[in-house]
C-alpha cells in the first residue's frame, strides 16, 4: 500500500493514543464514564465509580471518533476503511503497551498517587475493565473494531445517497416553511413577535417559581455574566480596547453595595437601590480615573495596564491597611437585600426577576447604543483609530465613554451579585473573573448578543450543572478555547452587520413610495 496513506493514519493513531494516556493519567476517563452513566439515568453517588459498561462505551466512542476523523473525505470507501484500520491498530497497540505498565502497577500493588494524585488503583482497574493481563488484547480489539465502525459510519453518512437524503429533507422542510409563511394569517405576522415576547415574558415570570432555588441560582449567575459580558463587549468589542482588569469595576459595584448596606464595618444601611446607584457611579469614577492616563495606549500595553489595575484593586481590598474600611480578606457579610414598596424583595425568585429585568434592559441599551452615531464611532475607532479621527470622530471622548459605560454595567452586576450572595470578599473579584468574562465574549462571539448569552451559558451555566467536571474546569476551559479558535474563530454565534440598504428598500416598498432616483441612473 501507499506509504502516504499509512504514515498519516499511523501518526493519528499515535497522537490519539497519547491523548488517551493523558486522559487516564488525570483520571478524565472515569469522569467521562460517570457522565455517560448519568446520561443513561444511572444514579452514581459522588466519589463512587461508574459501571464498567460505561467505560467500554466511552472507549468505543473514542475509537469511533478516531476512525471517523482519520478517514479522508475524498478517499474511496476501501481506502477509508484501511486508514481507520491502521489508526485503530496503532491506537490499540499504544494503549496495549500502556495497559501492560498499568497492569504491572496493579499486580505489584504500587500506589502511584504520590506522583499522580488522580490515578487511584480503582480507576486503573476500571480502565482495564478489571480483566488484568488480557486487557491489552481487549483494548486492541476494541479500538480496532471501533475505529472501523467510525469509518463505516462516515462512509454511510457522507455517501451520495445519504447526502441526497439530507438534501431532500432540507428542501422538504424549506417547502413546508414557505407554505406555512404564505398561509400565516395577517394578524400572526403583525403580532407574532409581540406574542413571542409575551410568551417568553410569561415563562420568565412563572419558571423561577416552579423550578427550585438551585436553578434560580444558576440562571441568576448566567444572567449576571451576560450583563458583565455586555459591559465588557462595549469596551472590547465595540471600541476595541483590550481590557483585562474588568473585575475591578465589578468589585467597585459589589463593595459599594456591601459597605453601604451591611451592619459591619460601617453600618450605614443606606438601602439596596441607592447603594446600587452609588455602586454604578463608583465604577464609572474608577473608569475615568483609569481611563484618563491610559487613553493613548493600545493593544498589549493597555491590556497589561488594565490587568495591573484589576489586581491593584483586589489586593487593596484584601490588604491589612484597609481592613477597618473594607473588611480585609474576610470580606463583608450580612449584606441586606433590596426592598420593593416597603416589602422585602430578596428571595431567590425575586433575585432572578431582578437579574432578568436588568439583563433585558442591558440588552436593549446595548442594542440602541450599537445602532447609533456613538456605536458606529466606536466601531470606527476599533477598525482604524487614525482614520476614524480623520473622519471627525473624537477618539478621546469616545474611548472614555465606552470605558465608562462598560464599567457602569460591571458596577450594576457587581452590586446585584453582592446583595444576592449576602457576602462579598476579595476572592469574588479575582483575575479569573475578568478572564471568564473575556472568554464568554470569545467563545460566544464578539458584538453578538445571542453569542454572549450562549457563551455565558456555556462557560458559567454548564459547569454549574455538570458539577463533576469541577476538577477539570480549567482543562475543559482551555481545550474549549483551542477548539473554538480552530473551528469557529468568530464564536459560537458570530455577529453580523446590519443590512441597512436592504431594510431601507423594504421600508420604502411597504410605504409604496417610489425609490429615489440617484444622479448615477
Amino acid at each position, binding site marked *: 500500500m501507499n506509504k502516504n496513506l499509512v504514515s498519516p493514519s499511523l501518526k493519528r493513531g499515535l497522537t490519539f493514543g497519547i491523548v488517551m494516556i493523558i486522559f487516564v493519567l488525570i483520571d478524565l476517563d472515569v469522569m467521562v464514564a460517570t457522565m455517560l452513566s448519568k446520561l443513561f439515568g444511572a444514579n452514581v453517588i459522588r466519589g463512587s465509580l461508574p459501571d464498567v459498561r460505561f467505560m467500554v462505551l466511552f472507549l468505543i466512542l473514542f475509537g469511533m471518533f478516531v476512525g471517523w476523523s482519520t478517514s479522508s473525505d475524498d478517499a474511496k470507501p476501501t481506502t477509508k476503511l484501511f486508514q481507520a484500520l491502521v489508526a485503530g491498530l496503532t491506537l490499540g497497540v499504544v494503549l496495549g503497551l500502556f495497559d501492560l505498565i498499568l497492569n504491572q502497577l496493579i499486580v505489584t500493588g504500587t500506589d502511584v498517587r504520590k506522583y499522580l494524585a488522580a490515578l487511584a488503583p480503582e480507576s486503573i482497574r476500571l480502565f482495564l475493565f478489571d480483566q488484568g493481563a488480557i486487557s491489552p488484547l481487549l483494548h486492541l480489539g476494541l479500538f480496532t473494531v471501533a475505529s472501523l465502525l467510525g469509518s463505516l459510519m462516515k462512509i454511510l453518512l457522507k455517501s451520495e445517497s445519504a447526502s441526497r437524503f439530507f438534501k431532500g429533507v432540507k428542501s422538504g422542510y424549506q417547502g413546508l416553511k414557505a407554505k406555512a409563511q404564505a398561509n400565516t394569517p395577517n394578524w400572526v405576522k403583525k403580532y407574532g413577535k409581540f406574542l413571542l415576547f409575551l410568551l417568553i415574558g410569561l415563562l420568565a415570570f412563572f419558571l423561577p417559581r416552579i423550578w427550585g432555588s438551585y436553578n434560580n441560582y444558576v440562571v441568576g449567575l448566567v444572567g449576571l455574566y451576560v450583563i458583565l459580558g455586555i459591559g465588557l463587549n462595549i469596551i472590547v468589542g465595540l471600541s476595541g480596547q483590550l481590557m483585562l482588569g474588568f473585575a475591578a469595576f465589578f468589585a467597585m459595584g459589589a463593595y459599594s453595595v456591601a459597605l453601604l448596606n451591611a451592619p459591619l464595618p460601617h453600618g450605614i444601611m443606606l438601602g439596596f437601590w441607592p447603594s446600587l446607584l452609588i455602586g454604578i457611579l463608583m465604577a464609572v469614577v474608577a473608569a475615568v480615573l483609569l481611563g484618563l492616563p491610559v487613553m493613548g495606549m493600545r493593544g498589549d500595553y493597555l491590556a497589561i495596564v488594565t490587568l495591573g489595575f484589576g489586581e491593584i484593586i483586589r489586593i487593596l481590598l484584601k490588604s491589612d491597611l484597609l481592613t477597618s474600611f473594607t473588611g480585609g480578606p474576610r470580606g463583608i457579610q450580612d449584606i441586606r437585600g433590596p426592598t420593593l414598596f416597603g416589602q422585602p424583595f430578596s428571595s431567590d425568585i425575586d433575585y432572578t426577576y431582578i437579574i432578568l429585568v436588568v439583563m433585558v434592559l442591558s440588552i436593549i441599551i446595548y442594542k440602541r447604543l450599537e445602532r447609533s*452615531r456613538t456605536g*458606529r464611532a466606536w466601531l470606527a475607532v476599533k477598525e482604524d483609530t487614525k482614520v476614524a479621527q*480623520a*473622519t*471627525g*470622530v473624537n477618539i478621546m471622548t469616545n474611548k472614555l465613554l465606552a470605558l465608562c459605560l462598560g464599567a457602569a454595567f460591571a458596577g450594576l452586576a457587581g452590586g446585584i451579585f453582592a446583595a444576592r450572595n449576602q457576602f462579598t470578599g476579595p476572592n469574588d473579584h479575582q483575575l479569573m473573573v475578568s478572564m471568564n468574562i473575556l472568554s464568554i465574549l470569545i467563545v460566544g462571539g464578539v458584538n453578538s448578543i445571542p453569542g454572549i448569552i450562549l457563551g455565558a451559558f456555556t462557560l458559567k451555566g454548564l459547569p454549574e450543572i455538570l458539577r463533576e467536571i469541577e476538577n477539570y474546569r480549567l482543562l475543559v476551559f482551555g481545550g474549549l478555547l483551542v477548539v473554538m479558535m480552530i473551528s469557529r474563530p468568530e464564536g459560537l454565534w458570530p455577529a453580523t452587520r446590519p443590512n441597512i*440598504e*436592504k431594510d431601507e428598500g423594504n421600508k420604502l416598498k411597504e410605504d409604496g413610495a417610489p425609490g429615489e432616483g440617484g444622479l448615477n441612473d
Partner: protein
Amino acid sequence: MTDPIIQVKNVSKIFGGLTAVNQVDIEVPEKYIYSIIGPNGAGKTTLFNCISGFYFPEKGEILFYGDPIQGLSTNLVAWLGISRTYQNIRLFSNLTAVENILIGLHPNLKTNWVDAIIHTKRFRKEEGGSVKEALRLLDYVGLKGYGDFLAKNLPYGLQRRLEIGRALANQPKLLLLDEPTAGMNMNETAEATHFIKRLRDELGITIILIEHDMKVVMGISDRISVLDYGTKIAEGNAAEIQANPRVIEAYLGPGGAALSEKYKKQRLSYAKSN
C-alpha cells in the same frame, strides 16, 4: 482669481535629518482642481498629512479661509470641512459600505449616547435622515446595491469610490485626493477623472489631487504644482508645466530636457513621414 480657500505658507516638515517638505507655498482658490505631482518620495503625501492634521509642520502656516489650522487634531480639521482619501485605501474594512459612509457623516450629526439610549424623537429623526443621506451618497458614488457588502469584500475600484463617498459625507469644502486612480485600468481611470470633475462642478468642492497619471493631471487640473525632494520646483497650468525644463529634469534626470526635445523631434518627423 477668487479668494484662496487654503494657503500653505512656507511649510516645512522634518523627520530627523530628512526634510520631507521644504518651505512649500501653495494657494488654492475656491472651486479649483489643483494637482500636486512629483516623483516618488517628493513629499506630496507628507504635505497632505500636514494639511489634514496628521503631522504638525515644524515651520510655516496653513490657513483655511484665512484661519490657521496647523497643529489642530485631525478630527477638528475634518469638522472644519477638509476631507481626504488615502494612497493605500483605508476603509473600515469589517463594516458595510453604508456604515462606512454613516461614519463619514459623524461630524454633521448631533445626537449623543443619551439620546440613543432613550430613543428620543430627535434621535429617530436624525438617524432616519442620516440613513437616507448615506444611501443617497452611496448612489452618488455609484455603489447602489453594494451597500450591505463589507468594505473589504468590495472590488478595488469600488473601494476607491467608497472612500470618496465617505469623504463626501462630511460635506467638505476641500477634498484631498491621494492618488485616486492608482491601480486602475484606462477605462476606470477615465471614469474616475470624469467623476472628480463632477464633484467640483456639481457640488462646488475644491479639490487638491496627488496623481501620477499625467493624462488625468493634464486633463482636469486648473493649476499644477510640482514637488521634488520636498521643494516646490514649478507651478502653473498644464501647458506651462509640460514645457518647464526643471520638471522634465526632475522626472527624467539631468539632461532630461534636451533628451525630451530630441524625442519630441523624432516623433514629429516620424509622424510627418507617415
